[in-house]
C-alpha cells in the first residue's frame, strides 16, 4: 500500500488516461506523411516511433495496453494506420504480423526500460528500443509474412531488410526523446521492492 490511499486511487484513472493518450499519439503519428531520406531505399513512416515511445515512456503494461487499444480501434474500422488504412482487413493482410507485434514490442521495450530505469540513459534506451522495437517486431513480422504468403523465410527476410535503416533512425529518436521526458516528467514509477529484487 503506497503512502496516502488517495494517490493509490488516482493512479488507476490516470493510467487509463495515459493508455488512451499513447494510443492517440500512435494514431497521430500515422497521419504524418512518410519522410523520404536521401540514400534510404524506402520512405520512413513515423508510426513505429509511437510504439517505441509508448514502451519507453509508459513502461511495459501501460505501453502494451496502449498499442492493444490502438489496434482495437483500427480493427473497428478507424483508418488510423499510416496511409489511412484500417478495418479488419489489415489484420488479414500479408504484413499483419507487424501489427500484431506492436503491443508485444511496446511491452518488451517497457520491460527493458523498467529494468534499466535507475541508470536509464541514452545507451540503455537504445538497447531497449533496438531489441524491442526492431528485433521483436521483425521476429514476429517476418515469419508471419512467410507463413501467410506461402513464401520461404529467406525471401520474406530479405524483403524487409530495406526497412531496417529507417527503424534504427526511429530507435535513436525514440531513445533521445525518452531520456529527455524521463528528466522532465517521469511516468514510470518502480515499486520500492524492486530495489532489492533485481
Amino acid at each position, binding site marked *: 500500500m503506497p503512502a*496516502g*490511499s*488517495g494517490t493509490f*486511487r*488516482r493512479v*488507476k484513472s490516470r*493510467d487509463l488516461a495515459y493508455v488512451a493518450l499513447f494510443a492517440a499519439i500512435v494514431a497521430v503519428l500515422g497521419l504524418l506523411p512518410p519522410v523520404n531520406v536521401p540514400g534510404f531505399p524506402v520512405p520512413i513512416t513515423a508510426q513505429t516511433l509511437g510504439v517505441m515511445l509508448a514502451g519507453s515512456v509508459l513502461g511495459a503494461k501501460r505501453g502494451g*495496453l496502449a498499442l492493444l487499444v490502438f489496434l482495437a480501434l483500427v480493427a473497428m474500422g478507424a483508418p488510423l494506420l499510416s496511409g489511412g488504412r484500417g478495418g479488419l482487413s489489415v489484420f488479414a493482410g500479408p504484413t499483419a504480423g507487424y501489427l500484431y507485434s506492436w503491443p508485444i514490442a511496446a511491452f518488451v521495450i517497457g520491460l527493458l526500460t523498467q529494468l534499466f530505469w535507475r541508470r536509464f540513459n541514452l545507451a540503455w534506451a537504445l538497447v531497449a528500443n533496438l531489441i524491442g522495437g526492431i528485433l521483436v517486431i521483425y521476429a514476429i513480422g517476418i515469419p508471419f509474412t512467410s507463413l501467410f504468403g506461402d513464401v520461404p523465410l529467406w525471401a520474406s527476410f530479405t524483403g524487409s531488410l530495406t526497412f531496417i535503416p529507417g527503424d534504427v533512425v526511429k530507435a535513436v529518436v525514440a531513445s533521445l526523446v525518452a531520456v529527455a521526458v524521463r528528466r522532465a516528467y517521469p511516468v514510470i514509477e518502480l515499486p520500492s521492492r524492486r530495489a532489492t529484487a533485481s
Partner: protein
Amino acid sequence: MRWRRRPEAGAEEPAATPGAGIDLRDVGHEYGDRTVLSGVSLTLTERRVGVIGANGSGKSTFARLLNGLVVPTSGSVLVDGLDTRTQVRAVRRRVGFVFQDPDAQIVHPTVAEDLAFGPQNQGVPAEEIARRVEEMLDRYGLAGHRDHPAHLLSGGQKQLLAIAGVLAMRPQRIVFDEPTTLLDLANTRRVARVIDELEQDVVVVTHHLDLLAGFDRVLVVEDGRVAADGTPAETVPWYVARMD
C-alpha cells in the same frame, strides 16, 4: 496497474449530515518533502466562496481537498460529515469539480456522450440520463452540437460543456479551479454569469477578482496558509494592496 475494484463500501450511502458544509480540521498537505498546505481549519457553509492567491500558493491543492481528489496528509476534511479519506465516493457524489482546462475534463469524443458520462457512472437509469442530457444541451446552447466532436467547440463552449457535464451529475456543491483563466473576456463574463445563476453552493478558485463581487466569503491563500478570510469587501482590497 491495478484494475481490481477495492473492497470498499461503494453502493450504500454512508450516514451524512446534510447542510453541515465542508469542514477542514487542521488540514495539512505535503508532496514528498514539500509542504503545500498547513494548519488550515475552517468551515464552509456559505453559498458563494471565493479563493484567491498567487500561483503556487496552494489554492489548487486546497480546491482538490474539497472533493477528495487530494486527501490531506494531516488533519481531515469532512463534507456534510463524510470524511474524504474513507468515504470518497459519497463525497464526490455531493461535490462536483470543474477544472481550469476543459480539454482535460471532456473525455468522450462527442458532446452528448460526454454529458452522459457522469450520470452513467452514477448508475442513473438510461431515460433519466437522456432527459438530463437534453436539459443541459438546451440550457447551455449546445443543442445544435449534440453529436459534434468536442474538439470543434470554441474554448468558451468547451468550458460550458465541462460545467454542464458536472451539473448533469446533480451535485449539491461545485468547486471551480480557475474556470476562466484560459478564456477571453466575453467568455469569462459568460461563465461568470453561469456560475452566478447556479442554485448549487460553489467554491471558486480564481485570479479574476471581479468574479467575486457578489460572493459571501473570500479566502486568501498565501504560502500554504489561509492569510485572510472575510467578505470580498474586506479581503480583496487587502490582497490587492499586498501585491503592490
